[in-house]
């Protein structure tokens, strides 16, 4: 899963194939990867790719702001759904 997330972030927000450009723990906000509309792109991506629904009260950096955070969040959502 992390691989899919990483690849998406690299190609669509960093526009590169360079694996070195992103660590799994890098904060998207701190590194300027997303602008004020970028978070909507990330949400659309995970909703479509992992068949989950992100609620308003889940739109938190703790859930969405790094590859690691996203992976943990998605696992939790999928577990609840299953």
């Amino acid at each position, binding site marked *: 899963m992390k691989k899919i997330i990483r690849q998406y972030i690299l190609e*669509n927000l960093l526009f590169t194939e360079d694996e070195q450009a992103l660590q799994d723990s890098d904060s998207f906000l701190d590194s300027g990867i997303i602008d*004020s509309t970028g978070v909507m*792109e990330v949400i659309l991506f995970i909703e479509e790719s992992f068949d989950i629904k992100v609620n308003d009260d889940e739109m938190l*950096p703790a859930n969405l702001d790094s590859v690691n955070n996203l992976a943990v969040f998605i696992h939790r959502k999928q577990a609840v759904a299953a």
Partner: protein
Amino acid sequence: MCGINGIAALSMQIKISEQDVRSMLPSLHHRGPDDSGVYLDPCQRIGLGHTRLSIIDLAGGAQPMHNEDQTVWVTFNGEIFNYLELRKTLLKAGHRFHSQSDTEVIVHAYEQYGDDFVQHLNGQFAIALWDEGRRRLLLVRDRVGILPLFYTRQGERLLFASEIKALLPQLSEAPRISPVALDQIFTFWAPRSPNTMFEDIFEVSPGHMLVLEDGRLRESTYWDWRFPEQGEYHQGSDTELAEQLYDLLADATSIRLRADVPVGAYLSGGLDSSALVALIRRHSDAPLKTFSIGFEEPSLDESSFQQQMIDHLGVENSRITCSNRDIAEDFPATIFHTETAILRTAPTPMRHLSALVRASGYKVVLTGEGADEALGGYDLFKEAKIRQFWGCQPQSEWRPLLLKTLYPYLETSGSQAKAYLRKYYSIGLDNPDQPGFSHLTRWFTTAQCKVFFSQELGAKLREDAVDRLTGQLPPAFDNWHWFNRAQYLEAKTLMGDYLLCSQGDRMLMSNSVEGRFPFLDHRVIEFANRLNPRLKMRALNEKYLFKQAMKNQLPRQILERHKQPYRAPDIPAFFSAHPPAYVDDLLSEEKLNRYGYFDAKKVGFLLKKARRGSSIAYKDNMALIGVLSTQLCHYFFIEQFSRTIRETGTPHCSLT
């Protein structure tokens, strides 16, 4: 309006040829389709050219024009709106006129007042004036930059013209795109005056005069936006000041209705254009025709508000709807006329609108541009105000939440948006007194687009565009109120460098239409600059005093309407259907690599995303339009330089 051009010798050995001056005229034909003329001084030190769009004194206004004894010559683009009053004064002082045109007041005013003549002009202008007796050339541009004027040195000659393309036939090789200009475009949306997109080609900055004398160029500032340094704002009640503002606006509008041809107006449905149309109706008996744009995309379309004003004032209106396809197909021609890369497609619909004006038999329109800058209307000023307020209490939880009122997409329920708000909008919050504080969010977001620069281009950039700008601000800047500082930056960067040229003059004149801007009358600006900032924005109510001034003239819905910025579709214009062939061609890996400005791999990922329809972020939209327009500029003015100039003598807007 018109096109002007010329060549001046920089040393005694050089003689100017009439043929060379004439070679510049065809590129300016769209600016002046009605007539053209050239003046060469007897010693061949200077040649002046002119293409004319006749608006005042249709029969007697041919240019270049001279004084009584033919020792002062002028080629002039623009309008002097107070020419009747100036003419009266100059007649009294003993000057004799041989025409009724506003151009002639320039030569007599120069004789009367010397270089200070420009202080007496109320208008929009680009002037080249030759003083035969003193062998000096003056190049002057209006106070705020409504009309363009470019120049370059070519060996021992100074070339100047209303558009860059008119300089090209006289250059020995193709111009080069300037890395510094690209850095500025991908930060401020435009090259910073006096820079242009091209190395060694400059513009005369707004409010500046260039004097060529004894082979040397000297530049001076004759006017600039100035604000109180010690709080010496206008005194008086809100009502009194609103009345004074109304009277000034009414006069600024009236003198802009002077013309020997019918005058129309742009009507967007927003407050400014609605107020302008109301002012015209109130102060003129002539039937008024208005022109409006609509969009397919409902979130960008303002038709219902336009209709309200049309019904309210009983004006005749013509309207076009600009489709995605229209924008994609006309974008190359847009860039041929802007002569610079841009980050939005917004100029293209303005070109459609001027085409509608021309097709309706009009060649002059009044527009509401400038009210937001002078009277305090932009959301950016509100953002700055909230960020200032927040900066006083950086730990506050609720102060940044005020930003939600500006940006509805931040409006998610509950408190979770807080963390994101804090991150995006806290840039520079540790020092709200720094010079560019009001604009940092915009500049920072835009500069993210530089990620697409090629390594070669990146390596050429040494100084950051923002540092360069803040290092060039006037000495008094730091003493102004922060709101005035934000106004200054907005007037000088976005308005002067982008709105009035790429989105204004160049889109109007590409269809031979003249725009007139009552809110940019320098008397209005000078009055507004001395208004206390709280009269411009009361709490978060923008253009407060202006609304007070207009409250009896406009319907409530228009006065109280939430401001909608003018926007056109960007990426969707090209990628909601299959894009025109030139897009794939210019954005191909081969062309990107050959031109060398951008990283082809990164642009490839952006294109993939755009084709999928998942580019939502502003920065993706800006980046793609910026890359495409840079490639178009390279294609038109560099790659095609030798072929089109050699074969036809003038640049062409053709993609084959």
